[in-house]
Structure formats: structure tokens, C-alpha cells
């Protein structure tokens, strides 16, 4: 596709010559590299509460970010309209990071390899809004009819459609159309006048509305949220202290995201501030552990055809049989570290500087059956669902919050326990992985990762895993 056929040419009259002129403005004071990032984002969000569709919101944001790299320095400016004067002004502001004669103009662009990891036929944003409204109503009905103890339901449907164009002073050019849709359901349940409990569920991906009709229905999310709320009504206090922990498959993969993933982002490693710095080639996990970050999985929330710097995404092995293999790179870090690109340069929007981020991060399946793993534990806890997590990449400590867990006693799953935070140390705790299940599962598609104030959608996944020792933040002895 030539620039002239792109979304931005059709809608805003952008030409290849414009791109060249913005880039030469960006390099007007020297600098090693420049890029421009065009973004158009249309959002729809529908919220139901107390069985009423209380709000429906649509919005558009658009803008251009201009970046100039000079050595290890980055200059960045953006503007929120696409008028050539404003973009040139932003380019001149970003150019101030460098202080040298102008770079020779480069002409012509080569388009990056074409593929489509999210071949959505009818975009969610092209579906009638009434069809989208029906989804939250269906979720409300299903959650309420699941159990009479459910007394509050909130259901949200949201979709976004993002058009991006990246042009670089290396002559690389890429376009992408990135759809995304998700549903979330939250249910509150209580017994008589007792303490209410909340359950959450949700899912989605780079999918069309047919996903919610055929693959994951509003009813499934609703029943799952209601089930979790009801389950918590009978939860007992979580035991405190170091314990054997079994993680269920799927969303508990957030462990990898916190314990391993962030610490392997190349910016932290080139600055030597990560607990994983200088450890490539070393044993950082049990030999049973292989961790992958893969931006190329079809229709997944964390997937991208090209990253936000125009690099083609790929499948990257982070840890192989317990040995650290490599870091997640963006353009700046890979230039400085002289390492090849991994397609992990991401940004929240045109207002943000790209940095190394995860895409879909998961552990490969092992050989144990899930039953065998549970049966191997004399006393411990089994964590099936989690809220979020956080990591201190420098000392390696990470937490993640279990929202659905059970006691394990004599190899059997027992009573549900209350929510609790689990804490461990990244390079240490992965060494305590003693069994890995054959049941790798990816999450449902609602993950959001925050780093330095920027949020991006991500995916995680894990099979059932036994960790011999981890600190569980309960209150019972």
C-alpha cells in the first residue's frame, strides 16, 4: 500500500512528500534517527448498572508524535491535529534535542512486510450500536438469574479502532488497522444482610462482534462473575506465611509478567537497574520453565502486526529451560545494545515516547497432568484467578493478588479462601517451580500493563504450575 492509499491520505490528505518534509524538519539540527507516528483512535463504551444502560460514550482522539534520537538522547513532541504547520512545529521542537548540522534528506520509503493477525471482517465499530447494547443487557440477565443472592450487576462493553502510520528516517514505512473489543462483568452477591462479595470476569481481543456471539458470550462472562461472587461468600481466612502454591492455568500467567517480563525489558537492562541485568546465559528459573513473549498470535489482545515503532512483531524466547536468553527490545535499546529488534517498542498513544513492552507472555506446557500436580501437594493453596500485580524491577520483588483460591489438603482441593497478595522475588521464585502442567491456557483478553504512566493491552498465559515456596499474605496461622 502506498501512502496515497492509506487511511491518513484518504481522511486527511497526507502524502509521501509530507512525511519526508516532517522527517527532514525533525533532523534539521542533526540527530541519528527520527520517526513520525500518526494515530487515529475511535472508541465506543457502553455501561450498564442496576439493569439500566446508564451510559453510552463515543469519542475520537487523533494526533501525531515526532521523535528524534541523538546518541542516547530522545526529543519528543506531539500535536493533536494533523495540520502540516502543527506537525512541522512539533518536529522542530523535537529536533532541539540534537545540536549539529542538518542531516541529508532521505527520499522514498520501503513498506514493512504485510500480514494481518487480526482479520476482522466486520469491525466492532461498524456493527450497529444496538447490537452492542444487547450484549450488556444479556450479561445483566444472565448474572441475575444465576443465583438469587446476586443483587448488583455492572456490565461494560468497549471497542476501539486504531489506525496508525509510522514513517522513519531509515526509510521504513508501516500502516496498521488495530481493532479491539472487550466485555467486563462485575457482580455483587450477599447472603441475607451479610457482607457482600464481588466477582469479576471479562474477555475479548482483536476481534469482531461475532466473538461475543460464538466464542465467548456475555452469558459466560456473567455466570463466571456471579460464580466468583457466590464462591467468596463461603471463603475462610487465607493462611499466612511461606507455602506451596499451585497456580491454575490462564490468567495466573500474570506471575510471569511481573516476576520475569518487566525485568527483561531492555531499557532497564541497558541501564543496569534490573535484577536480571547481565544475566543472559544464566540459570534464572527451574529447568522446567520456558517463557515466551509472542506478539504474533492471531486475534490476541497483546498482538500487533507491527509494533508502535513500525517493527514487525515476532515470537521471542525469554527463558529457555530455565536459562535467560534475551531481552525485550525497542529501537533505542537495540541500537545502544547492538542487538536485533524484537518488535516490542510500544506506546500508549501519540502523546507518549515508545519503550520496550511485553505483548503476550506465557510459559510453555510441561508434562504433568493438573490432577497429578494438585495430588502432589500435602498442604498449600491453589490459586485460580488473580487481580493485578506489580514489580520492583531493581530488587526483583513482585506481588500479585489472588482473587479466587482454595486450600489444598492431602492432595485435595478444599475450601475457598479470601483474596490475598502473594509476594516473591523474580530471579529466585522461578527456581522453586517443581512441576509444570500439560494444560497451557491463555487469558481471556482483559490485561492492561502499566509502565511509567503508559498503559498498553497485553496477554498472559500459563499451564498449571507448582511453586514449592512462596509467601502468601493471609491473616490465618
Amino acid at each position, binding site marked *: 500500500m502506498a501512502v496515497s492509499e492509506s487511511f491518513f491520505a484518504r481522511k486527511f490528505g497526507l502524502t509521501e512528500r509530507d512525511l519526508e518534509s516532517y522527517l527532514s524538519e525533525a533532523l534539521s539540527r542533526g540527530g541519528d534517527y527520527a520517526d513520525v507516528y500518526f494515530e487515529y483512535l475511535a472508541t465506543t463504551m457502553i455501561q450498564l448498572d442496576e439493569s439500566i444502560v446508564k451510559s453510552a460514550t463515543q469519542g475520537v482522539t487523533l494526533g501525531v508524535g515526532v521523535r528524534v534520537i541523538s546518541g542516547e538522547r*530522545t526529543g519528543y513532541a506531539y500535536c493533536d491535529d494533523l495540520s502540516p504547520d502543527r506537525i512541522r512545529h512539533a518536529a522542530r521542537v523535537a529536533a532541539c534535542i540534537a545540536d549539529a548540522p542538518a542531516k541529508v534528506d532521505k527520499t522514498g520509503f520501503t513498506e514493512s512486510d504485510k500480514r494481518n493477525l487480526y482479520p476482522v471482517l466486520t469491525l466492532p465499530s461498524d456493527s450497529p450500536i444496538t447490537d452492542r447494547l444487547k450484549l450488556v443487557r444479556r450479561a445483566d440477565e444472565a448474572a441475575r438469574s444465576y443465583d438469587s443472592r446476586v443483587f448488583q450487576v455492572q456490565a461494560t462493553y468497549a471497542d476501539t479502532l486504531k489506525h496508525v502510520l509510522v514513517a522513519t528516517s531509515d526509510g521504513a514505512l508501516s500502516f496498521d488497522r488495530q481493532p479491539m473489543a472487550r466485555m467486563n462483568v462485575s457482580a455483587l452477591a450477599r447472603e441475607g444482610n451479610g457482607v457482600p462479595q*464481588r466477582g469479576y470476569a471479562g474477555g475479548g481481543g482483536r476481534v469482531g462482534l461475532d466473538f461475543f456471539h460464538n466464542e465467548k458470550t456475555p452469558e459466560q462472562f456473567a455466570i463466571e462473575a456471579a460464580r466468583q461472587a457466590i464462591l467468596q461468600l463461603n471463603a475462610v481466612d487465607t493462611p499466612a506465611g511461606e507455602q506451596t502454591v499451585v497456580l491454575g492455568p490462564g490468567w495466573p500467567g500474570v506471575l510471569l509478567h511481573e516476576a520475569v517480563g518487566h525485568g527483561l525489558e531492555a531499557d532497564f537492562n541497558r541501564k543496569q537497574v534490573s535484577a536480571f541485568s547481565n544475566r543472559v546465559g544464566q540459570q534464572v528459573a527451574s529447568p522446567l520453565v520456558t517463557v515466551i513473549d509472542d506478539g504474533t498470535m492471531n486475534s490476541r489482545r497483546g498482538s500487533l502486526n507491527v509494533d508502535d515503532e513500525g517493527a514487525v512483531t515476532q515470537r521471542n524466547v525469554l527463558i529457555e529451560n530455565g536459562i535467560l536468553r534475551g531481552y525485550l527490545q525497542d529501537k533505542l535499546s537495540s541500537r545502544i545494545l547492538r542487538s536485533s529488534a524484537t518488535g516490542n517498542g510500544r506506546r500508549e498513544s501519540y502523546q507518549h515516547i515508545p519503550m520496550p513492552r511485553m505483548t503476550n507472555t506465557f510459559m510453555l506446557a510441561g508434562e504433568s497432568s493438573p490432577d497429578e500436580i494438585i495430588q502432589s501437594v500435602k498442604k498449600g493453596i491453589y490459586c485460580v484467578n488473580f487481580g493485578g500485580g506489580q514489580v520492583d524491577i531493581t530488587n526483583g520483588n513482585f506481588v500479585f493478588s489472588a482473587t479466587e483460591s482454595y486450600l489444598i489438603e492431602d492432595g485435595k482441593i478444599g475450601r475457598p479462601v479470601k483474596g490475598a497478595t502473594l509476594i516473591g522475588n523474580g530471579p529466585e521464585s522461578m527456581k522453586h517451580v517443581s512441576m509444570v502442567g500439560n494444560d497451557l491456557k491463555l487469558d481471556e483478553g482483559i490485561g492492561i500493563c502499566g509502565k511509567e504512566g503508559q498503559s498498553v493491552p497485553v496477554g498472559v498465559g500459563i499451564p498449571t504450575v507448582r511453586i514449592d515456596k512462596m509467601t502468601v499474605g493471609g491473616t490465618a496461622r
Partner: protein
Amino acid sequence: MIEQIVQDGVRLAMEMGATAVECSASEGDEFTATVRMGEVETVKESGSRSAGIRVMIGRRAGSSYTSDLTNDGIRSMVRQAVDLAALTGEDPNSGLPDPGELGKFEGDLALYNDDVGQLDAATKIEMARKAERSALDVDARINNSEGGSFGSGVSTHAFANSLGFHGAYKGSSCWLSVTPVARDGDSMEQDHYYTANRSAALLEPPEQVGQLAAKRVLRRLNARKVPTQKAAVIFEPRVASSLVGHVFEAINGDAIYRKASFLADKLGQRIASEHVTIIDDPTIPGLFGSSPFDDEGVPSRRTVIVENGILRNFLNNTYTARTLGMRTTGSASRGGSGNLSVGHGNFYLEPGSRTAEELIRSLGTGLYVTGLMGQGTNTVTGDYSRGASGLWIENGELAFAVSEVTIASNLMEMLNGMQMANDLEFRTSTAAPTILIREMTISGS
């Protein structure tokens, strides 16, 4: 300029058939610079604008927003909101505030200072460089850094509704932070310190910012896990403010009308020790949580939330107030999407009379928490379980660094076992002094 845009938006929506309209817009300039190991790492500078509208047709509401503030952009935003309002459900409590509730806090809130806009880029970069240098100079074990940063912003916020209210206010902010990294053998730690203010003249000096950051990171080195036990826990003000934030989540009208709060049925009852008084006050000059009116055009005012342990008031916007049969407290808050929620002004816990040192000395043993991790707070049930780091208190003295532990309890029990020191500081819009909690479960080895 944007005050005109929001009034135009309201008029346009009424012409298109709306029965009630609220329109808001913001514009601002931002600057951030980071210096790492003495070298400029990033400089970012830009301006942006956005507008949002909420339209009602009878009891149905639709909303829309845009970053395109041209006439065409505003027109299509308004059209979209009007179209959406035809599709949502009838909500008996929806609507604008009663006209008598509208207005502005009269008085100078000192939200804007010229000096922020007058600083040039070179001065800002130099302050970041100085702060980082000061941290690196403190101790040889501090030999790396995530950088020193200076940020500043100037913004204008405008709001109008179809009852004839319109207003705008300007705000400024700036901050200076530094994140040193220290190493001692196999132990590597980072921590940060920052100063933030609406006036550049009132920032703490860069040297002090660097030195305090250095002190914070050094005391984290060679941390250990402690055995699992029940013990007293002291939260330094920076982390104590998060506990006050949890109280806000539990007393905001959105959570109350859904009964999604452990405090939902507790109005007028004792919910905390008699030492606990919590106030929301958006009218304190110069603070980040201050504003002359809320996002519905209702004047800001001081509200007592907890008085000597008794729960006195919830915070409400017009919608949650109507649903609960109460009055708005001028606490409407609107995100970028235009939807209304309940926010707070300067939400703070009143200080006690003893110093933090006296509180620490009053303990035999316990944990002094300087860092918290994760989201393990459930404000529906009050259950609390979070990752923590800090210092172990032995014989009333700070003895050694602790990390990789969790602290757990229930917010109701925590509130009932609270004592405060006299060191309240307004760093962000939630604020607290040092807090001592009689007993929590510490999970470690």
C-alpha cells in the same frame, strides 16, 4: 477560548434536540525532561486540547468526546452524543443539578502561578541534573540512577451546562523527582523522592530532593524477610495516604448506592478509633485537590467525612445523591470519556499530637512501612493484603531493612486501631500523617 467552545457545545446540543447538556473542555501545555547519569535522556514538550459532552434527552443520557476542537470536530461530537442519548435506558435519577446548587467557590485558590510558565527548558533540565547529582554524591554505594526529572504543566479547564452555568479556571503544576539506584554486594535497590507544587518557587531545592532520595534508597539496602507474625505496623506519610485513599473509595456515593462498600450501612456509626478525623476540603489554597467548582458546576466545599471515629458524611455528585436521597457535596468528577463519577478534593486524615519518632519509640517491635505494592485492597469487604517493604523496629529504634513481606488485616480493624503522628503533609490530593496500626499480620518467612 475554550470557555466559548463549551458554551457553543451546549447551545448546539439544545438545537439538536437535547433537553439538558453539560460540556467540558481542557487545554494545556506539558514539559518533561529526564537527565540520567548527568546526560539529558529525554525532553518532551507539547500542547493538547480535548472536549467532552454529556447530553440528556428526557431521562436518557449519551456522551462523546474529541481531541478535534475545530467547528466540525465539535459539531460531530455533539451529534454523536445526541444520537447515543436516544439509545440508552431511562434512568429516573439522571439529570443536571438543581439550579440552586450551581455556583463557584469565591476566593483565591491560588491554582495558577506565572512562575511555572516562565521557567525555560535549560533551567528545568539543570534542576533535574542537580537533583540527580546530589543523590549520586551522597554515598559511593549510589552508583547508578533511573534519572532526575523535571515536569511542568499549565492547563485551563472550562465547563458549561444548559442551566446557564459556565466557568473556567487555570492551573499550574511542576515537579522535580530523582530515582537513585544503590548497590551493596548482591543487594540492589531503587527509591525516589519528589517535590511537587503549583508554584516553581515553592519546590524543595534540587539538592534536598537528591539527598532525601539518597537517604531513602540507602536505607533499603540488604533487606531481609522477617518471620510471619502479628505485630504493630507504622506507615510513613507517603504510604499512609494510600489508606486514606481506600477510605475515599469506601465512602464515595458510587460505591454506597451499589452497597459495594464495607461502610455502606455505617452512616452515623463508629467506624474508627476516636483519634480518626477525615476531611475532604477542595478549598485549601495552592493544593492539587483544590478547585472552585466540581465537574457539574456545583461549588466546592469542605465536608467532614469521619469525626472522632464517627462516620458523618459520604461524598456525592448529583446522581449518587439523588439515588441515596442525599444532597450533592460538590464532588462530581468527569473523566475524559464524559461519564460522571465521584471524586475528592484534598482528602486527608487529621494529625495527632505526638511526633513520628515518639510513635516509633512507643513500640517494642513492629514494621515501619515505606513502600507498598499491589492492589490487594477490597473495599467491598474491607479485606486488606499488600506487599510491603520498610524497616524493622526493635526496642523502639529503626533496626534493619525489610522487604518481600506482606501485611494483611481488614480496613475496619485497621481504622479502629489507628493512632496518628503530627506530621501531616499535602503531597498529593490524598494526605495523611504517619499512622500507627496496633496489629496486622505480617507474612514473611
